[in-house]
């Protein structure tokens, strides 16, 4: 195990260090103009405690995951009628019951399911669905199907949890560019992929001048206002992220293939005050129009192993009780296979909610394979905003109706 040179002999705990990193490096408070993004300020030092609340990690499986080949309804003969070639045979499944089985690549998630920590939600979608990746995902991002919202559902949840924007780094988005879901009125999400590239390269002499880069001025317009705000938050944020990453031990572990969940684990271990993590899958293979078996097998294995590894990390760190993960895609896929041994864009999908706090099992009504809708598609039996409302209200303890604009039913999938 690598020695932590920064900390050795100092008697300072890791957690203190991060808090020191937050406020003790001589960054002044920045004054402000409009809704200045507060990354770390006095308020956040008090708020940075690990008791600040429960954490939600959204792991977005972009591309349109084929739910029917993920949780396979092998007990329904119609499944094989629709999918004579790419339907997965009973013998190749990890059985759940007499009707459903896990795709064979998903040993990791199956294990969490068997431990009673994973909820499968069936038939999740919305009415009048879009078959476009981008449109449908934007509906999921904004929680506004066939409509829109300037801000994302995670961004609005941050606003509901902390209306004054006092809590810094409430949202972390592991992505090359900001995901619409995290866009918020009064919180600037931390967006990065590589923590070590997340720093300003400066010659020693230049440090004296760096504080004036985004000096207070009257913005010339919307674009100017925006770049000023981001510039002010950038320096402080980069410092603390790198500190957390350089201390994280999971990154050197070859047994853990966490995709981008390793960065989440690092920040959680470092006691970041973040409550909302949003991780869109990069380099997705889920859009399986053609010769679907191999890429789908691989993608499910990577994702499932990463999720199991992530929760093993949470156990090691001692935070497994405080973290819930939510997995969704932008849509499921067409029920009948196409002529290219693949599947086209579809409608309702299968979601996962995972964590020690989750009452494992099956939720929602599995859509019928006999009564298909909208040209060979699954009818949605659970509005995705029911799942959102469940997470917002029953896990994060925020006002779901305020975030979602109306009241939605919630699922009873948390313990206690």
């Amino acid at each position, binding site marked *: 195990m690598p020695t932590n040179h920064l900390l050795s002999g100092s008697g300072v705990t890791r957690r203190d260090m991060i808090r020191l990193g937050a406020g003790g490096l001589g960054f002044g408070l920045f004054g402000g103009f409009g809704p200045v993004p507060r990354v770390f300020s006095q308020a956040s030092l008090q708020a940075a405690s690990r008791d600040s609340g429960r954490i939600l990690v959204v792991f977005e499986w972009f591309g349109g995951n084929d739910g029917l080949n993920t949780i396979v309804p092998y007990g329904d003969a119609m499944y094989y009628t629709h999918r004579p070639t790419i339907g997965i045979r009973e013998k190749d499944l990890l059985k759940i019951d007499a009707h459903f089985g896990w795709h064979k690549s998903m040993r990791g998630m199956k294990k969490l399911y068997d431990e009673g920590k994973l909820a499968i939600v069936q038939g999740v979608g919305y009415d009048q669905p879009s*078959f476009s990746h981008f449109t449908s995902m934007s509906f999921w991002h904004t929680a506004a199907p066939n409509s829109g919202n300037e801000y994302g559902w995670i961004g609005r949840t941050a606003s509901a949890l902390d209306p004054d924007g006092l809590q810094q780094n409430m949202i972390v988005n592991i992505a090359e560019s*900001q995901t619409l879901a995290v866009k918020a009125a009064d919180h600037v999400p931390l967006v990065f992929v590589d923590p070590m590239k997340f720093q300003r390269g400066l010659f020693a002499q230049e440090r004296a001048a760096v504080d004036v880069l985004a*000096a207070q001025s009257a913005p010339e317009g919307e674009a100017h206002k925006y770049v000023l705000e*981001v510039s002010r938050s950038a320096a402080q944020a980069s410092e603390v992220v790198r500190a957390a990453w350089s201390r994280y031990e999971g990154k050197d572990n070859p047994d853990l293939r966490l995709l981008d969940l390793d960065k989440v684990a690092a920040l959680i271990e470092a006691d970041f005050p973040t409550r909302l993590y949003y991780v869109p899958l990069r380099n997705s293979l889920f859009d399986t129009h053609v010769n679907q078996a191999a890429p789908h097998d691989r993608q499910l294995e990577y994702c499932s192993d990463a999720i199991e590894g992530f929760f093993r990390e949470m156990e090691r760190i001692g935070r497994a009780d405080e973290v819930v993960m939510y997995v969704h895609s932008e849509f499921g896929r067409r029920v009948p296979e196409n002529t290219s041994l693949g599947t086209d864009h579809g409608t309702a999908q299968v979601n996962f909610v995972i964590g020690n706090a989750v009452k494992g099992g099956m939720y929602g009504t599995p859509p019928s394979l006999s009564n298909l809708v909208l040209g060979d598609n699954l009818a949605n039996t659970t509005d995705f905003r029911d799942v959102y409302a469940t997470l917002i209200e029953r896990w994060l303890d925020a006002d779901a109706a305020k975030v979602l604009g109306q009241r939605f039913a919630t699922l009873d999938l948390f313990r206690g």
Partner: protein
Amino acid sequence: MSTRPSWSPGPASWKDDLTPIGAADWNYDRAAHLLSHAGFGGSPATIQKLADAGLDRAVRTLVHYESIPNPRMQPFVESGLWEPALNGFPESRPEATDRAIKNGVSMGIDVKPSGKRPLQPISDRFFYWLRATLLETRRLGYWWANRMLQTSHPVEQKMALMWHGHFATHENKVRDYRKMMQQIDLFERYATGNVRELTMQVARNPAMLYFLDAQYNVKGAPNENFAREVMELFTMGVGNYSEKDVREGARAFTGWYFDNLTFKVDPAKHDEGVKTFLGRTGRFDGVDAVKIIFEQPVTAEYLAGKIYRFLVRDELSPDLRRKLGAVLRSHDYEVKPLLAVIFSSRDFYSQASYGGHIKGPVEHMVAMMKQLDVDECPGVPDFNQSTISMGQHLLNPPSVAGWAGGKAWITPGLLIARGNVAREVLVPDMTGFRDWNFSAGTDDLLGQRLRDGYDIGAATAVNDPANMTAFDRAALERDEQFNTRISGYIGWEQAARKLIPTPRHAAQFDLTKMVLESGAASAGEAVDYLLWRMVRVPTATATREGFVAFLTNELGTGTLERAKSYMEDALRMVVHLIMSTPEYQIV
């Protein structure tokens, strides 16, 4: 020193007004605004020339560029990586080796008749082309960036870049740099031409046909991918057509495919039946479908709005969008008249448009070179690595929707990356630089092991081959037909052997000369000149003062005459700081 023209946005009331500005409204600063939006900005001398020409001639010269000589445009020099046997390249490594098992040959490579790993050459071949096309595409992107820098037709290049993001395909899926090259050529030829014709060409473009699975769109089994994206992303926008239009449109395009670099139609796979598409009924084919799409008024609005947002500012009102759409439609989808209207309009010079555009990373790199009077994009830092770190990989947009642009270009991380790239250009790490094109990444280790005398099994062992576990030894004994891990390394090596090296020179410029020629005598005047030359939007007084203090301190004096023999590096650091300001990122 003479007074320099200052930031002069038009009144707020000019917003959304497409009336041309008057001759009296034209000045140096407006010319600078025009060039930074229509192209990639330029030196004060270039801007002065535009200002002297007057508005009409300035706009005409920019938009009707065909007669202007463009001597520095040179064709891309290929490394010679392609071979005809690679045509119909398999979509995956399993497909590559399955073909070999079935036919005894795959991609022109025969299966070994006996011995260990009989399919190894097949697997190597597959990875060879993956690396070859990836590396050549990086050279292609660098070549294109230099065209943007060296062209005398900046609007042509700016619009070609726009179309690349609009009709987005990425090499990562297309896996053929030659098809990406065809696209650059197409986007340049039609940069300011007719959008309907361009869309027609895109629908027949091999990269696009492959990217949107056209080869799977056949009579009786239509694949909707292409028909959907044509309407959703390329022409109309979501909400303006039905799902039925998508299905019927897909039928119209059935049988369109490509062979190598050539568009083809297979009459046997084309659905000749009657289709009802966007309210019209007939035996339509793809050409008809495109024509019908361009009969929809919303198409003109969608495209004009997209062009406007790319060139001018992120937000536009529905009213302005309608007006712009009407201009494009009344000129039968010719882009030049639309650009002339935009570039002459009050709206374009209004407060809302001044500083309203966040530069994209490629645009930002090219503009940076122009401001520094650099003649050729440097090899150090690597062009592609630089723009990737800022969020844009030329010829590899993230999806068919292209780059989001606007505010999405700037997050705390990306803003920091912009400053870091500026530093690498201004103070390049010449001795520490490692050529990305000739580094196999983590596979370098495999190469070292082969050279140390380990066989393929040992070289690809998980642990140190000199100290193997029982598990590793057992793995060595396995009877494998090929080893993909070593192929990743061998493929890279084989491609790199043929790849033309990218020249790795630093950017050539002389800030000392630039500042002295400006007439600056003091540190304050030097900072003022550099800010004026490089940053469109005014920076805070405190920022300017901080930079002056920094420069004075670095020079050990505020007098340039005293410091001129040694001030280059200090000036470079000042420019690094300038390029790290939020204001520098917008025009």
